Each structure stands twice: as C-alpha cells, then as structure tokens.
C-alpha cells in the first residue's frame, strides 16, 4: 500500500511537471529606475498609449524600445512589439533561444554551415559557397556522406549560436566568439580574413545580449510545443483592427521546451496584409490524423504576435506533423493558406530562418 501511495505522488508530480512553464528573466537593478519609469509613464499617458504595453505578461518592466525612438523618425513614439533597443543604423537584431545579436542588415539566413557536408551528392566538384556572409540556420541533420572534406577556402563568414561546453571540432578557419549565458555566439571568418573582417566579427559578438523579448516581441520559450496549448487570452483574429506590427516567432522543440529559433517583424502594410490573410483563412483543421505515426511528436511551430489598436494578441501556427495543422487564435482554428505561408517560409531571400523541422511544403497544400 505504501508503494502505491508513493507511486501516486511520483506520477502526479511527473505529470504536472510536464506543463510548459517557459522561462523567466530576473530583473536587474537599474540606475535610476524610478525616474525612468515615471518619465516613461508620463510620456505614454500623454500620448494615450496604454501603460500595459510597457509591461510584459509577468508585469515586468520591458526595455524602453517598447516605443519607437522619436529621434530616429521625427514622429511621436508608438507602441511596438520589440523588447530590444533600436539596433545601430544599418544593423538588425537576429535572435535564437534567449540570445539576440546585431548583424549588418544585409545578412540573410543560410543552411550552408551544416548542409555543406553533403555538397558532393549533386555531382559537383565543389559546394556552392554563399556569395555573402550569412546567419547560420539552426542545426539540421548532417548527413554522413563521403564527400571530400571542406576546404578552408570554401568557408564563408557566418554567425552561429553554440551551446557552451559542446565540442564542435577544430574549425577550418579563424573564429571570434563571446559567451552570453549558456550560449557561445561564434562568428567564423573566411580563410583569409582582413582586419576589417575581424573588427566586424568583434562588433557582432560584442552586441550579444540575453533577451526577454526580441525585436519581433518573441520570448525565448513558448508553450506551442504542447499540441493542446492554445493562445491565451483567446480572441477573434477577424476583429483585428489597425494592425501596425506582426511578430513571427519560430519555435522548435528541444528537450522539454519549445525554443525560439528565429523571428521576423512585419510592419505597416505587410503586417496588415498578414493579419488579413489570417482572418481570411477558412475555418478548419489541417493534417491527416489517421495517418499519424503513433507517438509522433510535433516539434515546430510559429507564434504570431499581432499588435493592433487593442494591444498584443497571439495566433499559433502549427506547421509540423499531421494533427491540428493551421492557425489558432484560441477561439477558432483555421487552415493554413498560401498567403500566410509565403511571408514566413517562401519569401526570397530568406530572412527569417530556414531548415530544421518544418516541412514548408505543407504550406503549398
């Protein structure tokens, strides 16, 4: 009998502990926090901006970047999804897990760093080396293919995120890195880097910060990995009004959590068009649950933050696997459509993230 009771407690706790809890970011003491908050509150109240837009879901004070910089635009600051300061001019934020890094605006995502190992399968004499520096997509499966090893001259400058303490082998070329939290931000240089390249790499790694919300309003961990999770609060996406920004946050399940892999912020007309695409999608649920592999664990999804006149509400986009595929605002489930898939997966050049887990063909159906 004793075993049964003990076992019941163990099973109860194990079950409850599977509930996605996300992560938290401790508040750090700031210099003069009260004057800043007071000043911000005065400005926001004067502008008619709801004060809650300054606060995240836990009641924490977000960074001042929650309003756009009036000095940059000459206009009155407005609410924004971003939880990061404005990047340097000509730069942009890219983020993965809980670390955001600034890179030059022209840098795009590319799978080359992990897919190049299979370059010879296409019968080529050498891989297609990207012409420009890039942000490396999350790791994908590296095929064990007997291609000749990459040569240093086939390395293009790129940024990647590595877990601290993971041995990744001897790099072919020089690297510049910085550790932030439990992540090592690494910029790999070409075979013959210039001092300018090294300085650029140092600027990139030096910009790395731990994020609470990234430039698209994405948090590091999402409950979307739980197939039964729905947006809270539930709302009706067809009632979105005056949409000014849409944050696209791509998550991938790793271990117990669904971690941020990449993001993009849509603004103005592009944001409004995306919200209209969500609202116009037919009601229904995609996928073929009858053909699901038993025990298949959906791992990839996109959380969409919609900022409109009422504030920020979420839509979950499930794009992986064979169950409950589509968009969900917590009230209504809708089918994936091409109009909502293109901005996420099929825009060229890719500037969100590619590879790893999502089958974008689902969006062609």
């Amino acid at each position, binding site marked *: 009998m004793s075993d049964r009771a003990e076992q019941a407690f163990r099973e109860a706790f194990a079950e409850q502990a599977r509930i996605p809890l996300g992560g938290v970011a*401790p508040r750090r003491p700031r210099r003069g926090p009260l004057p800043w908050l007071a000043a911000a509150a005065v400005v926001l109240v004067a502008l008619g901006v709801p004060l809650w837009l300054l606060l995240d879901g836990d009641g924490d004070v977000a960074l001042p970047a929650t309003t756009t910089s009036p000095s940059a635009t000459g206009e009155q600051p407005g609410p924004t999804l971003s939880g990061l300061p404005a990047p340097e001019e000509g730069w942009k934020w890219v983020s993965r897990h809980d670390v955001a890094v600034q890179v030059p605006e022209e840098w795009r995502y590319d799978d080359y760093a992990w897919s190049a190992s299979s370059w010879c399968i296409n019968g080529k004499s050498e891989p297609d080396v990207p012409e420009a520096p890039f942000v490396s997509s999350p790791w994908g499966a590296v095929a064990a293919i007997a291609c000749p090893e990459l040569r240093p001259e086939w390395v293009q400058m790129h940024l990647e995120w590595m877990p601290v303490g993971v041995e990744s082998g001897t790099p072919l070329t020089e690297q510049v890195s910085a550790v932030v939290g*439990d992540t090592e931000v690494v910029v790999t240089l070409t075979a013959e880097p210039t001092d300018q390249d090294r300085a650029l790499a140092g600027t990139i790694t030096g910009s790395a910060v731990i994020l609470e919300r990234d430039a698209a309003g994405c948090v590091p961990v999402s409950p979307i990995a739980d197939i039964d999770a729905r947006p809270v609060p539930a709302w009706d996406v067809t009632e979105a009004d005056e949409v000014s920004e849409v944050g696209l946050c791509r998550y991938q399940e790793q271990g117990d959590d669904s971690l941020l892999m990449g993001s993009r912020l849509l603004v103005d007309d592009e944001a409004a068009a995306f919200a209209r695409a969500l609202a116009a999608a037919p009601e229904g649920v995609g996928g073929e649950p009858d053909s699901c592999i038993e025990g298949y664990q959906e791992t990839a999804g996109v959380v969409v933050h919609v900022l409109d006149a009422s504030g920020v509400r979420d839509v979950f986009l499930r794009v992986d696997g064979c169950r409950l595929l589509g968009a969900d605002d917590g009230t209504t489930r809708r089918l994936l459509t091409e109009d909502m898939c293109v901005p996420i997966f099929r825009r060229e050049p890719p500037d969100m993230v590619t590879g790893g887990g999502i089958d974008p063909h689902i969006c062609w159906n």
Partner: protein
Amino acid sequence: MSASTAFDAWVSATQSRLLRYAYLLCADREEARDVVQDVLSRMFSRFDRLHGDGGIDAYATRSVTNEVISRRRRQQLETVALTREPAMQSATEKVPDRVVAWDLCRELPMPQRAAVVLRFYEDLDFARIGELLDMPEATARSHVHRALAALRERLDQEDHR
C-alpha cells in the same frame, strides 16, 4: 567570467528546476513564474556571496518555498477561500491514483506540501529536505509520512466508492 555572466549561467542552469518546483507548490503557472522571477531578481545582488558559500541552490529552493508561503498568507488575508468542489466523476469511472494524489497535495499545508514535493519529485532524503525547508529532519519525515497516510486513506475511499 563577470559576476553578471556567472549569474546568467547559473540562472540558465537552474531556472527550469526552480520553475517546476514552484509550480508543484502553488499549482499555478503564472504564479510560479512570478515567484521564481522575484526570487532570482532578489538573488542577483547577493549572487557573489551566495555562490561563494556553495549553498546557492539550497538557498534558491528555500527562497522559493518561503515566497510561496508568504504569498499564500497574503492571499488568505485578502481573499475568501471557496470550498473546492471535487471534480465530477461518473459513478463507474475510477479516478487515477495520480489524480487523487495531486488533489490531496493541493490541500496540504504549504510546508508539508513542500516536503512531499521534495521527497517524491526531487527524490531527496529527509535530512536534505529538513535542511532546505529549515526544519528538523524528524519534522520533514513526519510531514511526508502523514501525507502518505492521508493519501492511503483517500485511495482506500476511492477503491470502495
């Protein structure tokens, strides 16, 4: 490694366990997040000293427990507790043991509940539980044994329902 970086690294390594522990104590996702955030925020300024002492994990666990207890006391002053209705079950449907256990756990006084969670979720021995909860080992043992006795009685009732 700077103190701030070391703190970030420690938080990254620890927060998932603390969040789950806090959730099992308060059974509320948002409250658990608030509790852990408050605790970690307070620990930032003392991180160097706590880390140097080598007891930082125990301190964090103790702080989460105390914070949940403290919040419960404040809530009791501010709110009127409603009698919790048992979940509707059909006459023939057997309630799984784990559900009975979780229901009981949520009724336990907080120090007892913490002891039970540390014992059966974190698999700690009574000496360690006593240390973490700042209570004699015998008290920790007594808390757990009484919870088990109550659960046995509850399971027995369920069997004869």
